């Protein structure tokens, strides 16, 4: 029987500086000459990473109490609306939030400005209560003046994602970038064999409590992400061929760096945020060794027509083909472009590898695994609503 390792054994090796850590790209290369059984013997942890636009992101902020205090019932940060339905000076700013009069600057940019140490204008209104008499406040805040500044992203790091194309005669603007008419380009977004959830497709090591790299600091997986779907069709290598599982993550923004969090604006779509995430995968046994060995030719994804209602599937391609610069769709050669940064993802995988090798980062066994056999509801309109 091949070797089986525990989290504790691997952590012991990490602490003593004896662990072997490879990035997912390095292990995929090694797998060309080594079997999964050999890889469990030789490799302890594999680092995976992604750096892409993740709209379902945002930050929890506690502003601190002013004197006299205010119960903030409407809040704006540099004009961007923040959630006001929490306690007096708690708020949540969504990455995609924006003031419709200034759609190019949104919540993600506010988070980035704070992260970079810039002053941000806070304006808040309350009705005035016996214990919170104040009705209005206007002041400048920054990363030093606020209390908690916590990145909390309900859905990040999609396990695989579709390729976007446009068969119509009109150029369209999407979160997958600008799609030229008549199938003249195709965009894709995951980092392929380096992507976190593609290296542990059954989520054996990624679950609630998993310590990760988040925005340049240590963060945690806190829950399955929203739209968590584990029953999407898989290919012969056990990898879903479309967007499937997701993770929800949390971390201290005060420890993060602006190099790994970046506000973005997509023409005629809106604001989003690039988030850098790295996930370490402990090589516990031959099954996990086989999973992390997966390479771009074995990971496939679906090509969807974003120009047509219902986004019909036009084909299936591998990441090897996508990264070659061209794919074939309906017999036509179509130019490809990424919309997420593989070079940044590599940087993250490399940095996480260093943290692990320097004993700065412990791997964690999930406190609880994610649910299985999940699928999604779509939003139905009841008849009464259409009256």
């Amino acid at each position: 029987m091949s070797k089986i390792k525990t989290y504790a054994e691997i952590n012991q090796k990490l602490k003593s500086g004896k662990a072997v850590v490879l990035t997912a790209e390095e292990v995929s290369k090694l797998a060309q000459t080594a079997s999964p059984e050999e890889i469990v013997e030789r490799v302890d942890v594999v680092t995976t990473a992604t750096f892409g636009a993740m709209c379902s992101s945002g930050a929890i902020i506690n502003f601190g109490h002013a004197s006299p205090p205010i119960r903030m019932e409407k809040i704006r940060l540099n004009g961007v609306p923040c959630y006001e339905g929490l306690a007096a000076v708690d708020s949540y700013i969504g990455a995609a939030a924006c003031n419709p009069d200034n759609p190019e600057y949104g919540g993600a940019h506010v988070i980035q400005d704070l992260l970079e140490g810039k002053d941000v204008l806070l304006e808040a209104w309350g009705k005035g209560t016996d214990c919170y008499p104040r009705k209005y406040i206007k002041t400048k805040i920054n990363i030093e003046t606020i209390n908690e500044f916590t990145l909390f992203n309900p859905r990040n790091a999609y396990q695989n994602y579709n390729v976007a194309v446009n068969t119509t005669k009109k150029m369209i603007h999407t979160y997958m970038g600008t799609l030229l008419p008549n199938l003249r380009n195709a965009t894709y977004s995951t980092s392929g064999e380096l992507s976190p959830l593609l290296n542990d497709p059954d989520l054996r090591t990624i679950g609630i409590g998993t310590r990760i790299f988040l925005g340049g600091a240590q963060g945690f997986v806190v829950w399955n992400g929203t739209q968590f779907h584990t029953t999407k069709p898989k290919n012969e290598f056990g990898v879903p061929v479309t967007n499937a599982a997701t993770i929800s993550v949390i971390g201290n923004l005060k420890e993060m760096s602006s190099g790994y969090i970046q506000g973005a604006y997509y023409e005629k779509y809106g604001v989003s945020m690039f988030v850098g995430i790295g996930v370490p995968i402990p090589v516990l046994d031959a099954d996990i060794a086989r999973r992390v060995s997966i390479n771009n030719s074995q990971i496939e994804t679906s090509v969807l027509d974003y120009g047509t209602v219902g986004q019909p599937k036009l084909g299936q391609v591998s990441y090897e083909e996508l990264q070659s610069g061209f794919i074939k769709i309906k017999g036509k050669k179509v130019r490809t472009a990424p919309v997420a940064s593989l070079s940044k993802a590599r940087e993250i995988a490399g940095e996480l590898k260093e943290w692990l090798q320097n004993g700065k980062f412990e791997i964690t066994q999930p406190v609880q695994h994610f649910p299985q056999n999940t699928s999604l509801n779509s939003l139905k309109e009841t008849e009464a609503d259409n009256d």
Partner: protein
Amino acid sequence: MIKKRYILNFPPESGDKAFTYHLVKDYDIRINILKAEVFPGKRGSLLLELQGKRNNIENGVKYIQSHKITCEPLDKRIHFKEENCIDCGNCTAVCFAGALTMNRESWKLEFDKNKCVVCELCIPACPLNLFEIDFR
């Protein structure tokens, strides 16, 4: 022989000079007009690719400039905040001229400004708004 792209902006009073004729005849320059926005009686802009001997092109450019036409190399008119680029690749999706491409080893963005045709599609396509092209 060199090949270089220039942006020309001319004021209303210089609109109808037959300067392309002189560039060809007097300076032995091959001209490729890549983009033109000319309104009679108003300002106009041209993107030209000039091909010829280096000193002929230099003299040809001086000739154009002596007629109150601004003529500047294209790369001087493209302002790209390279230091902020995250190499996401969004701009390469729209750049059909092949000026913006991803290096398939490093996956870093490469920008060959001399291939640009000033289609201006990269300006809105960059989610970080890093491009500015001064054509008009």
